[in-house]
């Protein structure tokens, strides 16, 4: 029995911008792939890089963090720290030969319903092309 590969993407969405934007996309009946499982956090700066790492090693095909645009963070500076943490984690992945393309960070504001739909669709397509996460098969992690 061959199930069509529907990727599992974990999304960390900041409450004030990204999550609200996602909600707007939903209310506007825009097409958003079902592969994204949203986790609401108060700020993208709350996202511990270890969450992303655990999701990846746990078998998530893709992990995306979405927050307010730089300069518009509800808590002033959180998204700047999120940006630094993201590039740090991506660089660690890249140096270790892990698939850093499976990680993404995107700025989506509360009014950008269409942008949320577009970013999620594009990321989901990218993850589909990359195939399932090899960590899913590994027991000896």
């Amino acid at each position, binding site marked *: 029995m061959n199930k069509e590969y529907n990727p599992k993407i974990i999304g960390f969405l900041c409450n004030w911008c990204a999550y609200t934007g996602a909600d707007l996309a939903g209310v506007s009946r825009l097409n958003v792939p079902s592969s994204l499982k949203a986790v609401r956090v108060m700020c993208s700066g709350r996202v511990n890089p270890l969450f992303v790492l655990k999701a990846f090693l746990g078998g998530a095909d893709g992990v995306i963090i979405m927050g307010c*645009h730089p300069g518009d963070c509800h808590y002033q500076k959180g998204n700047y720290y999120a940006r630094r943490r993201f590039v740090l984690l991506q660089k660690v992945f890249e140096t270790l030969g892990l698939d850093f393309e499976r990680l993404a960070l995107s700025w989506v504001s509360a009014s950008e319903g269409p942008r949320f739909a577009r970013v999620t669709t594009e990321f989901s397509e990218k993850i589909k092309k990359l195939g399932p996460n090899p960590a899913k098969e590994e027991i000896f992690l």
Partner: protein
Amino acid sequence: MPKVLKIKKGVEEGINDFLKFLLESGKVKGIFTLKKTNENGAVSYSLITHLDELKKAVPLFPLMPVNAGKVLSAFTLLEATKDTVAAVLRPCEIRSFIELVKRFQGSMENFLLISLTCGGVFPLKSAVNGEVKKLLPIYWESIKKGNISSNIRPTCQTCEHFIPYQADMTIAIVEKKNTDKECNIFLNTDKGENFAKEAPGDIVFEEMDTNEITELKNKRKTQKKKLYEELGIEKLEFKTLIKIFSACLSCHACSHACPICYCTLCDFESKIFEYKPSSYNMELNQKGGIRVPPGTLFFHIGRMVHMGVSCVGCGMCSDVCPVNIPVSMIFSMVGDSLQKMFEYLPGKDIEESIPFGTFKTEEFAEIGE
């Protein structure tokens, strides 16, 4: 041109004389350095306050039983030492001390930091039954010639930061041909100059950086590529990582020996990442198997994320690993690429903020758009 205190004795005798002068004159109340603990060559770091004990000091002995930066941080965790202490440390130990001071884990005040141009140290596993004593003559020969001594820690063989950045004084050893007749101590700071006043010896002017030093840096760069290939880590990928860390026992000795890993309660030993029976069951159901104890790769990659930006490549982690995983080579490789990306060199400048705790409003502009 830098000022140098030139003592007309062999470098080992010269530095011991200088340390004796510092203690005798009352300029310092204690000397922190390596001391012989038995005749077999066992050494350990000691804080010496009596001249008699100073006779057993071996500051230049090529062994690092513990990263001294970690020890100095333990001394000054709550407040600076009340009296001045002269500490003889290797360049990476000073760098790790500074990284700890940046994290409010110590104070540099009241230390006279003496370092050396470093030719590396032997792995702790080779320092049993007097083995290091036998290897010493070959070790000193290669250092004189400006070569990489074989048998030293792999991270020492590949270290490009063997000239100390924040030392008050630097003992010039690497590629110096006359170390059996002369002891040259570079006085890098005003503090260094003050402490060297009235010391036995002459003040001259010499350059630290020579062609041979640049050549040695290049030799070590080449050795780095060679060792990466030999260990099979020059091009890592998921399956290779699993294989390399498959031997890991999760003893966390690497983390305990690491100077940067100062957290009294490490995340990876706390309840946050504890595996409860329900998680065991969940994984068993999903994958049909689970490694026990779980979370090996998560611990190592997580530790890289936490301390990579400050990794000074001292090599303690590899030394203490009971199953010979090349931890230090992998961690310093990741550390190097992180430090390059953030244009940050750990331990170089006490004023430079750790990349984790700061940001610029305009940077990495392509991310997120």
